[in-house]
């Protein structure tokens, strides 16, 4: 994923004084990035690298490869704590941790445990903290899952994507769909909450294929489902194949139909939407870490290419693991650039994030005329609590909604 443009970030990691304001009232979360995958999927533009891409014989730099990565991440945790304190941000106990990738489960469970322990040692974890890791279905074993649960992980999110072999093949997914139920069962036996990620709109996927995948996901009885429309990201193999005409580009109409199907099937199976692309069995099963993003809470992203947000300042780390490791080794902030949002930008973000959620957005903070127009057009409803909540059609046209509100 290409990093946004921004201003230079200070090398000591300190933040503008404005971030302190209201910090005590905001939740604090930690995102831990693991930038490694066994192979790269053609559609994926996450900041991730295969062992082959990173190979450098005799490499000494700690953190530049899978074996020593956890050490570097732990170093950044210490750096983050110091920078926050130097910026005057009160120390807050961490409520959510999310380990994402890449494929975090390519690392030994012990490494993931060590990273979580560093968070705990540094900031503490609330007793009901949510700790999630992403995982590829073929990268887990019962032992590893048990070890993760023991270390304090509470949730696992499997990249299932599809249950249909030809769709998985187009997505370059290597896992065997038949093994997904095993992975889910092991996770549950280990005591972890389970979520599955699905992708719809893959070239060649029929509506029936998508129904098959949805049925397979529901049959796993996960606590949580994420379903994403396939985005053809620039710079990916998928993008090149579409550009060359080898694969048809996904269409909005097809994706809209599939979204509607997903919402119907999932609702029928007892999953309620709580964010445009996320459904949970109960409110307690929602991903609190992600909800914090949409509510504009604070989080620190650890690792190469990780993004952070504290009180209206966003920043992102340099992407390459080697450059990242070098900065960490030098005790210098790994931030590539940052963005101190002005009032207008914060408002736009607030609306664009807030309206994605089932709680909706307070009507009192919006233009009455715009709200009435959206309600009249069937894009949103006004709840008894006087919040504006998107309808199914409004969720699909959320960009239009944001434009009309801002």
């Amino acid at each position: 994923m290409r990093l946004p443009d921004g201003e230079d970030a200070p090398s000591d990691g300190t933040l503008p004084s404005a971030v302190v304001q209201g910090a005590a009232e905001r939740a604090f979360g930690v995102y831990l990035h693991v930038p490694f995958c066994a192979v790269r999927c053609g559609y994926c533009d996450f900041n991730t690298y295969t062992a082959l891409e990173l190979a450098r014989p005799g490499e000494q730099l700690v953190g530049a490869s899978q074996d020593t990565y956890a050490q570097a991440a732990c170093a950044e945790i210490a750096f983050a704590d110091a920078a926050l304190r130097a910026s005057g941000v009160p120390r807050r106990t961490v409520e959510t941790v999310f380990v994402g990738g890449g494929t975090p489960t390519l690392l030994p469970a012990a490494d993931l445990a060590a990273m979580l322990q560093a968070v705990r040692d540094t900031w503490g974890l609330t007793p009901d903290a949510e700790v999630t890791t992403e995982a590829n279905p073929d990268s887990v074993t019962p032992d590893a899952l048990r070890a993760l649960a023991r270390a304090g992980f509470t949730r696992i999110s499997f990249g299932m994507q599809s249950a249909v072999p030809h769709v998985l093949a187009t997505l370059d997914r290597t896992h065997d769909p038949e093994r997904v139920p095993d992975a889910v069962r092991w996770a549950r036996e280990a005591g972890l909450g389970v979520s599955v990620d699905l992708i719809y709109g893959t070239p060649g996927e029929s509506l029936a294929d998508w129904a098959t995948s949805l049925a397979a996901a529901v049959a796993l009885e996960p606590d949580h489902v994420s379903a994403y429309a396939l985005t053809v990201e620039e710079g990916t193999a998928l993008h090149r194949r579409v550009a060359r005409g080898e694969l048809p580009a996904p269409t909005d109409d097809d994706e809209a139909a599939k979204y509607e199907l997903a919402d119907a099937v999932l609702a029928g199976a007892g999953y309620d939407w709580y964010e445009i692309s996320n459904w949970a069995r109960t409110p307690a099963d929602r991903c609190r870490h992600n909800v914090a993003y949409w509510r504009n809470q604070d989080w620190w992203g650890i690792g190469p290419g990780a993004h952070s947000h504290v009180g209206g300042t966003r920043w992102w780390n340099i992407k390459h693991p080697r450059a990242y490791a070098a900065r960490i080794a030098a005790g210098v902030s790994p931030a590539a650039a940052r963005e101190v949002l002005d009032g207008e930008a914060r408002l736009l973000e607030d609306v664009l994030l807030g309206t994605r959620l089932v709680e909706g957005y307070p009507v009192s903070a919006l233009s009455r005329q715009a709200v009435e127009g959206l309600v009249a057009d069937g894009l949103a409803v006004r709840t008894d609590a006087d919040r504006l909540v998107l309808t199914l059609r409004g969720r699909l046209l959320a960009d239009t909604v944001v434009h009309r509100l801002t």
Partner: protein
Amino acid sequence: MPIPSPALAAGIQPAATAPHLLRNFCIIAHIDHGKSTLADRMLQLTGVVDSRAMRAQYLDRMDIERERGITIKSQAVRMPWGVTGDDGVESAYALNMIDTPGHVDFTYEVSRSLAACEGAVLLVDAAQGIEAQTLANLYLALENDLTIIPVLNKIDLPAAQPEKYAEELANLIGGDPEDCLRVSGKTGAGVVELLDRIVADIPAPTGDPTAPARAMIFDSVYDTYRGVVTYVRVVDGQLSPRERILMMSTRATHELLEIGVSAPEPTPTRGLGVGEVGYLITGVKDVRQSRVGDTVTNAHKPASDELGGYRDPKPMVFSGLYPIDGSDYPVLRDALDRLKLNDAALVYEPETSAALGFGFRCGFLGLLHLEIVRERLEREFTLDLISTAPNVVYDVTMEDGTEHVVTNPSEYPAGKIREVREPVVRATILTPNEFVGGIMELCQSRRGALQGMDYLSEDRVEMRYTLPLAEIVFDFFDQLKSKTRGYASLDYETTGDAPADLVKVDILLQGETVDAFSAIVHKDKAYSYGVMMAGKLKDLIPRQQFEVPIQAAVGSRIIARETVRAMRKDVLAKCYGGDISRKRKLLEKQKEGKKRMKTIGRVDVPQEAFIAALSSDAPTGKDAKDAKR
């Protein structure tokens, strides 16, 4: 000795040159036959521009002329030339040369220049032969009783066929093929002989030096630093600095602040005498006070009769010009006022379009003229403009006898129409005979009527047609080019108007007429226009929250229909920590884009859609040049 010695040169000083030592001529030709390049060689050989200062097409000074490699404005230059007579006596002459444009849109520039001259160098590309504007400009020169010197140019080209084309030229203007000079503007070959020939063949101006002064204004140019610069040719008497002059048609008087000649830089002189060509500066700021065609005389000792003037060029093609950013309207108005100072042919008046806001309906000589004005407005005044599809002017007579002059399709009257008349041109097409059939087909499909056909030589044919102007101003030239592999050339002049079976096609978005897309077309072409425009818009208008029907209609009859289906999804599915900045920036960009949209009814139409839908595949000067290569 081409460059006269100082002693001899003393005899040809401005205001002190005997008329028999003056020669006034212009260079006329079909576009691209090398007029400006030949002028370059003359400037060098006569020593007025030294080789260090020389650059190709020296007299093409406007950026747009240099970029396009064409001449748009005529330029006059005074040059000395020495000739040794049969008696061995050397004399110096002052030559006044005018380089003219070749493109048909600028024919009026040529006709103005002709009135300042006694002779014309008719230049013909020796690799191309006679073409349509060769004829058109030749006839203009003959109408003005000019002495013609036929010259074949580009003889350095391997493809040159001077024998063949000398024959053609001799057939055309009479005389011997041997009389036809052969030159190369590129190498300079033959140019000395040409200058000598100009002195020998072109008559000296005649005029009465003792009569009250009379000078003909043949050009009037606004210059930011000097105000209006007026170019004149003195017919009788003398003009001197500081005298009061009278413009005979407007009766306005001015003081002559400066008088001089172009050499080729403006050079003040002690005045201008009989037969001389030069410029006047009076301090007026508006070229309308110094009208082309008017006669200048002395205010205290005025002449009694005006010289014959010119007809003002009449606009042939109309188009609406609108600023993309509505707040630029005043800038556009000022810019048009400024361009008008140098361009009598440009006319405009304010108009309002429901779709495009405030703008101007502008009249042009042709599409190249339109394109050049538009480009100058955008470039010199940093404006972003939309121009509506060009159209000609229609005279509509209603059943009740009321008449309407329609320059904008959206003003086409509703109700019972008795007759619509449209402008008609007489077109001359020169072509190798193998393409005659294809050209006939093309002209037929454009409602043309063949008036006659002549063989200029064994294999070259002149075809004369009358055609509706509306049928040829748009893509006719492109079609002609492609049907003749670039070998045919076209010239035309308006000859009046004729009744025609025309209808107005409206384009409706969600039931609302979009005035900017209305067009007046022949009844038989209404359907294809409607289908084409509806189809174009369907691809150009982004999907909206609701379905947008696009219809083409003649009156209340729908003749074509397309639909932009409602947009069903625009949301980015995944929006996690790393996506937020990106997503916000995307929305901000879209917001900017929305500002550049026009809302018609409830439909957002991007400017690009207007531009793309309205852009025509019009022939341009560039195309005309490409056709030759």
